[in-house]
């Protein structure tokens, strides 16, 4: 029996090492594919005249910006003012007050001179009842929807009903968009108007940056290590993964913090689903489903240049809730769209991206955690020697460090948002330190989300925000 257990443990540990090798190789391939794409974009520079000119053109497709807000009184006025000062020829900002318990609505009414408007809208998508629609007496394109609480997806559906423009941009009310973010995000719709259904922008960490009047005026790294680790994580996710997936038209997630969509496509798929916590990923998957089902030649694109700055959690408790929710969202979405798995009808998405997500994003944390547990048990009970355990730990750490540092290299070779050598050094150090405990902690939390899904846990949980003030 002992021999059998020993063999099984050794076999499993070897298998986990192989698993780590595979994921490492895949990430490396994704990062390099992303690098090629990013360098190509940087190489094929755009004439600065283009941005200056399209800003004034009446031919640009107008955009409705949807910003759901729940208890956002700390930052909502500043965020709305920043949205209203975006560079774009024609747009409307629709803030959806999702039954806030604080004075979010009162603040908006006072600050922007809102009145109860008779604005007409169709109830194309179902949502919790809308109590009133407000518009501003001032000549600003602001609409505020006051509705009963129904969650973010429900708020976005209400916003979609009220939106009047052909493109809709979903943003978080507590995020900060760069002034030209919309102009840049809309580019794929201009270059390929018949095929593009959605465009996602990059989300960067705002902690540590100087924010004034709703704009990031100076880019800097956060003071806390937890936030610094997340800077590296965000770079890895966006520059390493999404650029590459976008290049092969198998992007599976557009961040809820900033995404631009064709309104007709969103209405075509019935809007956001309200029974999932991963509504952003689920929406993109359903867009793929819908477009492929219709036999459409389509594109869902990631654009690395339009930037949305967001505040990340600096406390472990908040971070844990956030990561648990993200992982639950991933599991729910992948399960709901399991039909795509290895289905040649879905092309690269079904045959490569989806299996990747199932194997490495859904089950990855479970495999890694069982590897850690087995290593500890193996050493404690003498199942296997220190050599294998040491190799596993080394492999796990070097894999993490390589991915993190690789994403910093991507950032430096292409977008260069961190100007100082000191910043870069800090990012590299963060990339190394992240793999010495922090990443493992996240892995354990993510594995825990699996159990929460099995237990049927739903809901977002409380997210503590400090605000940019």
């Amino acid at each position, binding site marked *: 029996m002992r021999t059998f257990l020993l063999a099984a443990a*050794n076999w499993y540990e070897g298998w986990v090492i192989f698993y780590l090798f595979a994921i490492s*190789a895949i990430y490396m391939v*994704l990062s390099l594919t992303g690098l090629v794409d990013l360098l190509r974009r940087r190489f094929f520079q755009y004439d600065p005249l283009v941005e200056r000119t399209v800003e004034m053109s009446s031919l640009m497709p107008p955009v409705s910006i949807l910003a759901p807000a729940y208890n956002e009184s700390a930052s909502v006025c500043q965020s709305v003012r920043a949205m209203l000062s975006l560079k774009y020829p024609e747009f409307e900002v629709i803030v959806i007050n999702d039954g806030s318990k604080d004075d979010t609505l009162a603040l908006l009414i006072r600050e922007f001179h809102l009145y109860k408007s*008779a604005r007409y809208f169709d109830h194309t998508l179902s949502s919790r009842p809308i109590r009133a629609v407000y518009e501003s007496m001032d000549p600003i394109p602001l609409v505020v929807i006051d509705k009963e609480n129904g969650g973010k997806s429900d708020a976005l559906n209400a916003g979609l009903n009220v939106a009047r423009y052909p493109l809709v941009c979903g943003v978080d009310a507590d995020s900060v968009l760069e002034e030209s973010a919309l102009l840049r995000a809309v580019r794929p719709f201009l270059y390929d108007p018949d095929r593009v259904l959605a465009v996602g922008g990059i989300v960067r960490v705002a902690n540590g940056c100087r924010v004034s009047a709703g704009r990031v005026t100076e880019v800097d790294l956060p003071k806390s290590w937890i936030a610094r680790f997340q800077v590296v994580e965000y770079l890895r996710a966006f520059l390493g993964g999404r650029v590459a997936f976008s290049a092969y038209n198998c992007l599976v997630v557009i961040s809820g913090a900033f995404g631009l969509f064709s309104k007709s496509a969103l209405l075509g798929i019935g809007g956001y689903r309200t029974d999932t916590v991963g509504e952003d990923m689920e929406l993109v998957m359903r867009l793929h489903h819908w477009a492929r089902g219709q036999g459409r030649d389509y594109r869902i694109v990631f654009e690395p240049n339009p930037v949305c700055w967001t505040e990340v959690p600096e406390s472990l408790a908040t971070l844990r809730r956030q990561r648990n929710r993200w992982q639950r969202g991933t599991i729910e979405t992948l399960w709901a769209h399991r039909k795509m798995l290895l289905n040649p009808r879905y092309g690269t998405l079904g045959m490569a991206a989806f299996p990747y997500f199932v194997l490495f994003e859904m089950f990855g944390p479970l495999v890694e955690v069982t590897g850690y547990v087995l290593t500890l048990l193996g050493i404690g009970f003498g199942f296997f020697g220190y050599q294998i355990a040491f190799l596993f730990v080394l*492999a796990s750490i070097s894999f993490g460090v390589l991915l993190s540092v690789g994403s910093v*290299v991507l950032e430096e070779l292409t977008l260069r948002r961190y100007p100082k050598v000191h910043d870069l050094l800090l990012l590299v150090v963060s990339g190394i330190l992240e793999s010495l405990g922090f990443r493992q902690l996240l892995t354990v939390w993510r594995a825990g989300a699996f159990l929460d899904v099995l237990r049927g846990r739903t809901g977002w949980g409380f997210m503590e925000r400090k605000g940019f003030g």
Partner: protein
Amino acid sequence: MLRVLYSRYWPLLAKLAPLVIFVLYLAAVLLVGQNLNLANPYSRYALAWVVVQSSTLILLIGGLLANKWIGVRLADRRQLRADRIAEQMVGFALRYQPEAGLLRYAQRYPREFLKVWEGSLTTLKGSARERVLGLLPRAGLDQQLQAEVVGSDPGRAVWAISLLRELNQASSLESIERALQHPAETVRASACFALAAHGSDLQQEKVFALLPALPFWQRIVLFQQIHDSPALEKFLALTFRSADRTVVLAALEFVLSRQRIQPVGSVAELASSPDLEVRIKFFKALPLLATAEDPASLAATGLADADWRVRAMAARACGSLHLSSLTATLAAKLSISEQAAETGHIARALASLGGESLLRLRSFANSSNDMTRAVTVEVLERALLSPGGSR
């Protein structure tokens, strides 16, 4: 490398690249693994993998930090030089510094000089700007830029075009014209924009000929660049009567983009064009077209269209052109409209016509149709809140 990027094989190469990278990575691990002296194959290849990863990591970190350190230092030096050049440039523009010092800088540090020169042109006006403009040919940098326009680096070519178009010289424009054949699309587009803004009649005609085939985003930019010229008049006179729908659509987009009244002669056929997109854009642009026909009769054709989007645009045109004679038709359309967007356009048109039309619109505030009533109330509310809205 550039040849590869431009070649038609690039998409295939880009698809194969990940596979090649994966194979190389695997080969490196296998190679290192074979040379390690460990009996257990698991341990051997796991260690090989760690060795390959760590080596890659060390190379990456070293290269990254060295590159940043050198880059920051070089940028600082360049900035220092640029500051010195800028100081001299201000003196030269204000006529208290001779140009000799600046020309020396231009020879030694052309990149920094061009950056400062470009920046100066955006801030200076009048004779000071003219003096600074003349510096570039005297420094001989225009020749260098002309060579870069057709060079292999698209980024530098676009920059060179943006500088040369400021010069507005025949020789510069000729080199920009050559860039219309550049393999990179961005360079061709920049050349189009520059020639549309500064080119001779002949060069403009070349650009106009390319216009319908250009992608939508390039047309948007180009329309903003085109200046009034005989070539433009000739182009517009022909395009509105073209049998090619893409040409007609480009002309209509041009009018919409400029937002200025455009004499176009007789365009009655466009109002009843079999092409839906042409009809929609035609009625959208109607308030900006000085037509030979009576605009009211054209708008009436639009209001009778089978497609609601055409009717909506025709109604909008009625409001913009103050076609009060069509009040009864608009009211009749409002009573039967089933599309909220169309209803909104008709209601807004009636509101903007004021007087009798506004009264007709008010009667719809009690309509039995929920949608018509709600849209009417919204439009009336807006009309009352707008400046002078109590008409």
